[in-house]
């Protein structure tokens, strides 16, 4: 049989069905902040099952990092789209009709719609208190600030920041913003829940089967072993399908209905389910006149929406990578995860890195301009190299920033002083601490069966694992079966995020195969554990057991009358260490760059009257094939290099490279996306500067 993804025979969760299944739909709040004063479901036909807040009042609070959610909100809704209740019926149409028969009354409350306002002293509080979750995903010291909307504050301190700035010849200080963005995975969120003799079976598109199982266990007060989570291949995710999304509602509905229930969201609901953090980032950087960096201070506000989700982790990662891959003696970072009355923001391909790299790498070019040093030269002068200590105190190994940066610059024909060209470089952490385990079984006929919890969402990890296994076992890739993750069977894994699977699971696989070869049971087990983590108050420790490294270059031209930008060429250089499946790796780079291009140029969630104002694919655009600039990329390998994950690395540096290319034309962009309107404003600003000077 030919590849079912191409012939159309591949089944996704939206195709999952069982006998007797009902179809669930969700009634959502139309107010961003309100108290529910009454719910009238008396007009709903009897054969429709209605799940009300009262039905789930006895269930427990959950949340992967802060336990701030209930299956349905009790009394208060916190964003437009917050689920109020859910129904299950024989057909989707019947469920939708039932929703129209339900009357909910609200009393509006004040709301707050951006992180800057939400951190003002008199801001309304989205949540009264912050209870840290007991989920495995709350793995680091989470520091809520009581009595505020800040659910986590991460700090990193090295050296003496005041002394650093005092010694600087040149200081640049600037504030940058990035817009919220939608993942727009082609397959929407979908989940099928069924109960059998007190056991819950959840078939869902989800990148975090074990974290999901843990949170469901918390919600229903069950043992994790009594919950089975199965994750078939997803039609894309990019971070959207992580932790509990619709699974709690599906499970509670199914329990009340005593029938299996499937929920599939529509596109508008997708925009209300999980998005990317908008950010406001202030950067202050000081250098000696010869270009040596002395001090850097970064302040991040990451808008995590109405529920924290993994926002604390995003803010932390945004913070600890914000100094960038440079030797800087004096560093101070404060990064805050902030509640607002917007839909939750969470994991999004790159997890906070794009935002801080946009701010930091744009600042580098502003500094270069002020110093009169070429931006590439300024970077090369300060880059971290093998054996250098990062500002967290960890010593860098397998370092390739310079190779990446030089490769990106060469690919776009970079020449100092030539207008229209820009570069950027990034370091990106991987989930740390982190754990992966895998089991390999020999089968008759030279075949092998592998159980592992790495999920497939198009990134090709399972293909990479099968390829590595075939290589280690001396068989054909076709002789290896890797069924979809099933928490009843698959050995535990932290989760399929942060480009960690090939690196972590790949090494666990090596252990398992060695174990298999040593044993006479026909079975091998392998696990890998990376320790580390940061002190959340000082940012000292091991931020990442393994750093993703990359750079980008861009060539642009501008229509100065309309601000329209033509991106002529983008190149990304990614340090792969060792490539496992080249074509898959190329797809990861290309896909990341295209997403980065959308982020750079036009993707933006507009907030209108406290709601997402453009929740459809006409008003929210994603890149099409006709949008592509010339895209090239390199996978940089090195003899003896580690296998590096590369599912996300080529996204974060793209907007900054394009912004820096515009900077080389004298246009200073501070806000993403770089719409023609903003570029035209930058043209005006440059014209004013020239006229002032004249």
């Amino acid at each position, binding site marked *: 049989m030919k590849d079912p993804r191409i012939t159309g025979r591949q089944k996704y969760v939206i195709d999952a069905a069982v006998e007797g299944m009902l179809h669930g739909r969700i009634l959502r709040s139309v107010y961003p902040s309100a108290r529910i004063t009454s719910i009238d479901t008396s007009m709903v036909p009897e054969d429709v099952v209605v799940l009300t807040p009262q039905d789930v009042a006895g269930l427990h609070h959950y949340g992967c990092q802060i336990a701030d959610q209930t299956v349905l909100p009790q009394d208060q809704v916190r964003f437009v789209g917050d689920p109020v209740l859910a129904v299950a019926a024989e057909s989707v149409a019947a469920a939708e009709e039932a929703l129209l028969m339900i009357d909910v009354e609200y009393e509006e409350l004040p709301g707050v719609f951006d992180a800057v306002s939400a951190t003002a002293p008199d801001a309304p509080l989205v949540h009264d208190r912050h209870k840290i979750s007991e989920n495995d995903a709350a793995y680091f010291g989470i520091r809520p600030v009581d009595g505020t909307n800040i659910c986590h504050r991460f700090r990193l301190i090295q050296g003496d920041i005041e002394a650093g700035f005092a010694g600087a010849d040149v200081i640049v200080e600037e504030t940058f913003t990035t817009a919220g963005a939608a993942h727009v995975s082609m397959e929407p969120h979908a989940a099928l829940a069924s109960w059998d003799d007190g056991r819950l079976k959840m078939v869902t598109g989800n990148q975090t089967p074990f974290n999901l199982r843990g949170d469901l266990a918390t919600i229903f007060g069950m043992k994790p072993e009594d919950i089975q989570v199965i994750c078939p291949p997803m039609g894309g995710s990019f971070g959207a399908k992580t932790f509990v999304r619709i699974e709690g509602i599906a499970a509670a509905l199914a329990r009340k209905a005593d029938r299996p229930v499937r929920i599939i969201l529509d596109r508008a609901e997708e925009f209300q389910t999980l998005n990317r953090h908008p950010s406001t980032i202030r950067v202050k950087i000081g250098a000696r006149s010869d270009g040596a960096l002395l001090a850097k201070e970064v302040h991040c506000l990451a808008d995590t929406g109405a529920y924290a989700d993994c926002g604390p982790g995003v803010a932390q990662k945004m913070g600890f990578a914000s100094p960038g891959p440079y030797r800087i003696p004096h560093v101070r970072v404060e990064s805050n995860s902030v509640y607002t009355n917007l839909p939750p923001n969470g994991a999004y391909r790159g997890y906070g890195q794009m935002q801080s790299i946009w701010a930091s790498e744009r600042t580098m070019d502003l500094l270069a301009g002020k110093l009169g040093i070429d931006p590439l030269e300024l970077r090369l002068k300060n880059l971290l190299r093998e054996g250098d200590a990062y500002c967290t105190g960890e010593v860098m190994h397998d370092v390739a920033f310079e190779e990446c940066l030089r490769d990106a610059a060469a690919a776009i024909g970079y020449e100092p002083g030539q207008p229209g060209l820009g570069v950027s470089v990034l370091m990106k952490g991987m989930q740390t601490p982190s754990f992966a385990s895998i089991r390999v079984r020999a089968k008759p006929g030279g075949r092998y069966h592998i159980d592992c919890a790495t999920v497939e969402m198009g990134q090709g990890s399972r293909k990479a694992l099968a390829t590595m296994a075939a290589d280690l076992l001396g068989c054909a890739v076709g002789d290896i079966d890797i069924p979809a993750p099933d928490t009843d069977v698959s050995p535990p894994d932290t989760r399929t995020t942060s480009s960690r699977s090939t690196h972590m699971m790949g090494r666990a696989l090596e252990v398992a195969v060695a174990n298999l070869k040593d044993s006479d049971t026909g079975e091998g087990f392998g696990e890998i554990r990376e320790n580390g983590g940061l002190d959340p108050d000082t940012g000292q420790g091991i931020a990442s057991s393994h750093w993703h490294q990359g750079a980008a270059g861009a060539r642009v031209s501008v229509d100065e*009358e*309309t601000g*329209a930008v033509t991106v002529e060429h983008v190149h990304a250089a990614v340090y792969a260490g060792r490539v496992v499946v080249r074509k898959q790796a190329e797809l990861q780079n290309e896909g990341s760059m295209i997403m980065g291009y959308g982020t750079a*140029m*036009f993707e*933006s969630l*507009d907030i209108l009257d406290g709601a997402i*104002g*453009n929740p459809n694919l*006409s*008003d*929210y*655009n*994603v*890149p*099409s094939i*006709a*949008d592509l600039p010339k895209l090239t990329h390199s996978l940089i390998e090195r003899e003896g290099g580690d296998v590096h994950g590369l599912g996300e690395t080529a996204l974060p540096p793209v907007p900054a490279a394009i912004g820096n290319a515009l900077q080389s034309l004298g246009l200073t962009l501070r806000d993403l996306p770089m*719409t*023609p*309107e903003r570029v*035209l404003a930058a043209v005006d600003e440059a014209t004013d500067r020239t006229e002032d000077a004249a």
Partner: protein
Amino acid sequence: MSTAWHSPTTREEVLRLRAELGEDGTLVAGGTFLGVLMNNGILAPEAMISLAHVEGFERIARDGAELRIGAMVTHRRLEFDADIRALCPMIADTFAVVANPRVRNWATIGGVLADADYASDPPAAMIALDARVVLESASGRREVSVEDLIEDVYQTVIEEDEVLTEVIVPLDQSAARYRKFRTRSHEDRPCVSVAAVQASGGLRVAVGAVAGKPQIFHDICALAKGRAMDSGLAREIGTAYAERIDPITDARGSSAYRKRVIAVEVRRALEDLAA
């Protein structure tokens, strides 16, 4: 209750159904816009009258100095039709940039004008071409200019018992140009669109996607009377259009930004005409 589906094959049958059903009978041309409304719960018709099989609604014909285009002629046909390309290439250029091939395969000229969406490409082009539509009902027939047809977003002068059956385009233009300025994806609708036509009756410039309906100012166009188009005149008219229009703000650009772009794009369209 199931929706009633009517599939008339003659003009008379369509007009009779339209008279009988009134506002309960929704006309289906290409169905692409209708589908969007139905999927979003904005429209739930009791009865649908498909125009797909009506004899004569898909005709393109030259009639002396005019071109007659049946209401059911698709965007895709207008994009490729050899006669259209030869007689009035701006029509082909305009319909070629609407949405994607999948939509253009079914969307029709009658449908897009009757929908009167502010961000569609064809209305501004048809107004600049001084096109008219034929509105027929069981009790009569009238011709209305596209300029008068569209009153505001989704609002036209089409009566409940009328059907837009044909579009008539004069062929007296010596130069015509449609420019679509996008601010986001290639797949996006215009932030500002400009249709400029030099015809025997003079210059006609219509600006689309910036207000409830395409904007045309005859007094400003009259500045071109008796003058050869050059960059100075183009700039003068562009600036005058920008000053006169009070543009909307949407995800494609703010009002202030659109004003700037209108001045530039109108000027460029006129420069293109002169070239």
